[in-house]
């Protein structure tokens, strides 16, 4: 019975011009988007490698210079593209890719792609994730809205029932007829993406496990949608009505809820503006040690402390240059202030996340969206991770430079110049992205919510069919 239903549904879909056209359009778009995405990915990767190399070259060849001048001169950290961004671009477009690392300041990542584009880019982009998240659910609706209603309209449901066919088997057959084409199409795209990625020369951290995890998230999402569409078709009397209801569900879950979620999150837990944030940091900085200002109260205290510690009565008698030492202390103090303010910001973002999680209860789109981009490492959390890593590197760089200053010069000697070979001794900045298990662990709740959606939609479908 299951097989018969399945083959009948397949034949019907195949003979139905509309279904064929829609299916082909989605498949063509999907492959086009993967191809486009691939081009962009390769390009961005090349630029990244070139920029990193050339920036390092500039740093290494600064020539003789005071270490603190080098600190102000600074260096840049560039964000590498993650392999799975080929499939899900996530928030990549909206975050900066370049962080300037200099003395005294923690800078925000600059140059987001969206800021360099016209307003139309806010409609969305032709990327695989757009098709996987928006168009495939629509395709499911198109293929399945009349899966029961057509039997009702043609009167064949009664015939089927009276012929002793088990409704469960019938349902399962119909379910499979929707699931198999979607499953195949998604799987093929993921396999192609996997093959493309593993054939790249510098594919970095690409792992098939991540790809498979991402694939299973999408399959879970489609299962939920298939269940919902079948449920709607089962309870609706006419195909037209079923279609309208299913589409309303799609609009609500995929378009409206994310916007409501972001609006609520913003209203409830607003971010400061850039200027406000900078003003708060500056205010805190003023209250503490200023590495440059000798007459600063904190600087005086530090001086007394160090003199006492080394049992000497003048800064000239110290075994190191106190200027360099004070600069390093100032740097540490400022780093702590940045850490405090960025942690506040992070806390606000965690709060916003709670709003998203709450609303994930009414939309299976949200957990899928978040899981997909976190596995692809194109989510906001990855951006935080990168900018924290860059900040750690900045702190490390400042220590390297200030230590050099303190150890190789005498107090008051601002004319000191470090040797031109000094700079290449600084280790390179290497960003290691989070591991898949860490990502899964931080996104557990979304995984649970999506799992619940799968379970609940299955059981509701089963119970409705059993009871009605």
């Amino acid at each position, binding site marked *: 019975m299951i097989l018969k239903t399945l083959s009948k549904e397949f034949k019907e879909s195949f003979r139905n011009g509309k279904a064929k056209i829609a299916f082909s359009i989605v498949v063509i778009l999907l492959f086009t988007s993967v191809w486009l995405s691939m081009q962009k990915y390769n390009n961005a990767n090349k630029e990244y490698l070139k920029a990193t190399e050339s920036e390092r070259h500039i740093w290494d060849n600064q020539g003789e210079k005071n270490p603190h001048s080098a600190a102000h001169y600074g260096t840049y950290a560039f964000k590498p593209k993650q392999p799975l961004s080929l499939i899900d671009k996530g928030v990549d477009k909206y975050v900066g890719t370049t962080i300037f690392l200099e003395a005294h300041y923690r800078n925000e990542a600059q140059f987001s792609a969206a800021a360099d584009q016209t*307003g139309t880019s806010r409609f969305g982009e032709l990327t695989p994730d757009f098709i996987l998240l928006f168009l495939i659910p629509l395709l499911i609706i198109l293929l399945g809205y009349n899966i029961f209603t057509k039997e009702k309209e043609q009167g064949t449901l009664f015939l089927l029932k009276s012929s002793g066919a088990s409704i469960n088997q019938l349902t399962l057959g119909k379910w499979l007829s929707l699931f198999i084409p979607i499953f195949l199409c998604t799987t093929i795209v993921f396999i192609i993406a996997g093959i493309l990625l593993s054939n790249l020369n510098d594919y970095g951290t690409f792992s098939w496990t991540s790809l498979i995890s991402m694939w299973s998230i999408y399959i879970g999402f489609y299962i939920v949608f298939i269940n919902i569409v079948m449920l709607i078709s089962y309870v609706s009397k006419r195909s037209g009505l079923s279609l309208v209801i299913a589409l309303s569900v799609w609009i609500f879950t995929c378009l409206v809820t994310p916007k409501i979620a972001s609006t609520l999150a913003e209203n409830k837990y607003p971010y400061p503006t850039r200027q406000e944030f900078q003003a708060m940091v500056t205010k805190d900085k003023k209250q503490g040690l200023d590495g440059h200002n000798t007459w600063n109260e904190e600087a005086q205290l530090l001086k007394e402390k160090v003199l006492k510690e080394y049992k000497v009565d003048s800064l000239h008698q110290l075994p190191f240059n106190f200027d360099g030492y004070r600069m390093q202390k100032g740097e540490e103090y400022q780093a702590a202030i940045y850490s405090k303010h960025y942690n506040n910001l992070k806390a606000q973002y965690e709060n916003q996340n709670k709003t998203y999680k709450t609303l994930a209860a009414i939309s299976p789109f949200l957990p899928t969206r978040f899981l997909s981009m976190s596995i692809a490492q194109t989510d906001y959390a990855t951006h935080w991770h990168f900018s924290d890593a860059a900040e750690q590197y900045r702190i490390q760089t400042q220590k390297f430079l200030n230590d050099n200053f303190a150890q190789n010069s005498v107090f008051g000697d601002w004319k000191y110049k470090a040797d031109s070979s000094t700079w290449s001794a600084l280790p390179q900045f290497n960003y290691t992205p989070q591991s898949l298990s860490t990502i899964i662990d931080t996104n557990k709740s979304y995984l649970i919510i999506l799992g619940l959606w799968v379970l609940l939609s299955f059981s509701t479908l089963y119970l409705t069919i059993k009871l009605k």
Partner: protein
Amino acid sequence: MFKYNFIYEFKRLIRSQWIQVLSILLFAVFSFAVFNGQQKTQKRLEEISSVKEKLKTSEAQMLSVLDSIEQGFQVSVSRWRLPSNPMTIGNKHPRLVEMPPHQWTFISTGQSDMYSHYVKPTVQANDFELSFTEMTSPTQLLFGSFDLTFVIVYLLPLIIIAFGFNILSYERESGALKLLASQPVSLTFWVFQKLVLRFLWLSVIVILTLYLIFSGNGINIFKEMATFFSLIGVICAYMLFWFALAFLVNIFGMNSAKNALVLIGLWILFVLLVPTVINQVGNTLYPMPSRTIMVNKMRSIKANATKKQDEILDNYLRDHPEFAINDSTQNRTFWHRYMASQALIDKALKPVVSNYNKQLRKQQNWLDKLKWLSPSMRVKAALNNTAGTSTTDYENFRNQALAFSEQWRKHFIPFLYNNTPFSSKDYEHIPTYQYRQKAHSNMATIGILFAIALLMFAIGLLASKNLKYKMNLTIS
């Protein structure tokens, strides 16, 4: 016949609770959207005024210090922060270059969640060091916000589709079509009347709810009637466009489900696919030069400039003999060398930076050429323009800010190179900034949308003379 159609349609709409449901639905959705928009605008206003307040306080402090210096008193300010140094004023006491919202900004978030609404250009900073992007959670940028534009561009057509996809097919499916066909009226004309009536009702509901919500939120529509009417004009033209589409689909379509599918297909095409594809092609045709490569270039130029600071200063003074002649002290400090290098770096980077604007302009021109491929895209742009939150508005602000930054720098540089101390008298003459709103007109959008809709109605009315044959209603 029109009279009967009007009366029965009205009765039917009331009895089927179409009008009631729609009014409540629209009221709820519009209210939420307007509330959100208002909150954003409010926040923006508060931020700007709080920054202004802070600048005023620090200005008052600075002026009193300056006054003390002029009176010959000792002041407890570190040497490099003395306000008699023109560089202190130029860097530590900048003017606020702000882009305040106006009365209608709340209707569209547009690009306002991405860009800053105020900057404080200083003398020392390069143009490309001014950051115009805002600190927003990128997740929020990805999802977008629930504003009036979203409701109008995305949701309103869906409401029209939901209530207009089965006008004719429903009659047939319920068996009433044969009765109707026996009436002395053309079926096409009957569908036309029905859709026009629904359009009128929907327009009345939309205008009334908007009016109520606007007045409830303290928006005085009588203050800027023209904008309100142009807003209403855009919305009505857009609705008429979708009703016209529904009309064509009703006439040429078959059963309800197929009609709904076709209309939804068109919705996806206009709202999701066309803008996405056009944008993609625009980006491919006129790609933005890489920012990372730009950073590299900037670094090399800067590295060179730092190495040759003294030489650069000499060259600079050779190019600007007026500075060298007027100054008797010939005192050269860090700032002299620094500003000369900055000028050089700015000059060298100008073509690189303007390349971005050029490419952005090209992309915008490309979109302008193809804008009518999707009326939704057009309407969204028109609403963003009305709200003053479109890409061009922010570009306009950016250009104004950069021009002011230039003016600001130019004002202080003679002080620096002539080694003239800054006095409180000079402070009265420093440049100030006033944002100039870019004027937009929606008349073309409204006119063309109406024309397209009318054309579609005309095509439907003319091309469907054989509708009765198609519906198998003629007796042969």
